[in-house]
């Protein structure tokens, strides 16, 4: 497998609190990798290390390496704008801007001036089609995104990422605000997106990890306990702690 993200002896501290401890993990290209573990074990923190969103928090320090597409993202010379264009993020709560559907999709295009206005229609159509929103919304492009259902909002948030042309999509519990049916739809969407994107999804829902992902990483108290093919993790886990967690003994 070819790894698009390599994490080498990575440590992260919030002040003096050691949140990630010597994490080593290779994320394979065009696969879905899920991170599971009890709440507070560092899943979101690790995800944010990949597009350096932890920088927005105060008093965070790191050591070790996170290599995305061959570049160490913690290098002082790293261009954060370029990194975040390459590594897109979907948040836990659907968070469209309080603008129209079209404006949400075009948000980055207009700021980055990455397309001419005459291409806007195409971009909107392509992005919304990729997340299966086009048929439902093609006549409602000018309604406020806040009028959409939560599922549609989360889809729109994914569509908003696509014009930036990311290679990697980080999803931090993207379904936790959604009902089971909507969750199923988003999982289906992830399967479609896999052809063109590498997806890393954080979830506290083990079944979801089992359903959607090719690889699964189990984190516990900032340590990467086990990382393997999802099939193996869920059938023959090597570590006792993984087994305990999966069998519901704690977490």
């Amino acid at each position, binding site marked *: 497998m070819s790894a698009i993200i390599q994490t080498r002896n990575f440590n992260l501290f919030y002040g003096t609190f050691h949140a990630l401890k010597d994490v080593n993990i290779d994320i394979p290209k065009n696969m879905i990798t899920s991170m599971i573990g009890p709440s507070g074990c560092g899943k979101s923190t690790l995800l944010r290390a990949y597009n350096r969103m932890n920088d*927005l928090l105060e008093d965070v320090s790191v050591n070790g390496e996170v290599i995305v597409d061959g570049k160490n993202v913690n290098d002082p010379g790293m261009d954060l704008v370029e990194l975040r*264009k390459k590594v897109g993020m979907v948040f836990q709560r659907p*968070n469209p801007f*309080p*603008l129209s559907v079209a404006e949400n999709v075009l*948000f*980055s295009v207009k*700021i980055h001036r990455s397309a001419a206005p005459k291409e806007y229609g195409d971009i909107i159509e392509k992005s919304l089609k990729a997340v299966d929103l086009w048929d439902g919304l093609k006549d409602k492009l000018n309604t406020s995104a806040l009028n959409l259902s939560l599922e549609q909002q989360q889809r729109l948030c994914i569509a908003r990422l696509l014009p930036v042309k990311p290679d990697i999509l980080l999803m931090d519990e993207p379904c936790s605000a959604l009902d089971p049916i909507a969750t199923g739809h988003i999982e289906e969407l992830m399967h479609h997106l896999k052809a063109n994107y590498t997806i890393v999804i954080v979830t506290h829902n083990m079944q979801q990890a089992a359903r959607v992902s090719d690889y699964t990483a189990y984190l516990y108290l900032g340590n990467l306990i086990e990382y393997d093919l999802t099939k193996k993790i869920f059938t023959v886990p090597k570590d006792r702690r993984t087994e305990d967690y999966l069998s519901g003994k704690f977490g």
Partner: protein
Amino acid sequence: MIKNPYFRERIAFTLLFIATAIVVLPVICILFFIVKEGWHAISWEFLSQMPRKGMREGGIFPAIVGTLYLVFGTLVFALPLGILSAIYLSEYAKDNFLTRMVKLAIINLAGVPSVVYGLFGLGIFVVFLKFGSSLLAGSMTLAIMVLPIIITTTREALDSVPQSFRQVSYSLGVSKWDTIRHVVLPHALPGILTGMILAVSRAAGETAPILFTVAAFYLPRLPKSIFDQAMALPYHLYVISTQVPNIKLEVRYGTALVLLMIVLSLNLIAIIVRAHFRKKRKW
């Protein structure tokens, strides 16, 4: 003791209602009184003519124009300066001792009596910078007076923009400055306009800061440049109310009414603009 919760609810409601009524009533009375006493004086001549015969006849045109110039001049200096420094303080400044002192100082500046600003303007702009008593000196003095208002309201507006909007924007590869320009400022705009409304009212209505820095006692012509003195409504009102004998009462109330109308209509414009932006972006 009274046990019935419905009865206590009624008492609470009545008390709250009375308190509100006591607050609103004087405002209505003042408005009513000024309109009643002043509207006879309002005429096209009153609004469009120069004052004559030591202000006992003619109109108040130069004072109206002077006040509009001063409000405009104040905003020219105070808006950019206030908004930019609010952006710096809210979005860029590290939260350290110095920043906290600066923020505290700005809040306290809002409580400084306006006559102190007047004396400051006299010392700095009129005398030291040799602007003389002029629209420039007056506008700058008023601008300094309203800066704390603009900075405080702008900061509140910036702080009320949800953090998640900034996060999303950064996560889409948008730089900090572009995030401020395209995400934060548009959402903060209604709040910033509120600050502007307060600033306009304050700048148009104060007498003390313009007393030594721009206001002319009697100048029956329009200012020709920013280095000219000008008449202004609040000072004119003060003059005809206390300094010039035998001025008809209705002229004084008429002048007050015009001042009131100018402030209200400037506010109305800002409120309409604000409502327009609120409608466009809602969360």
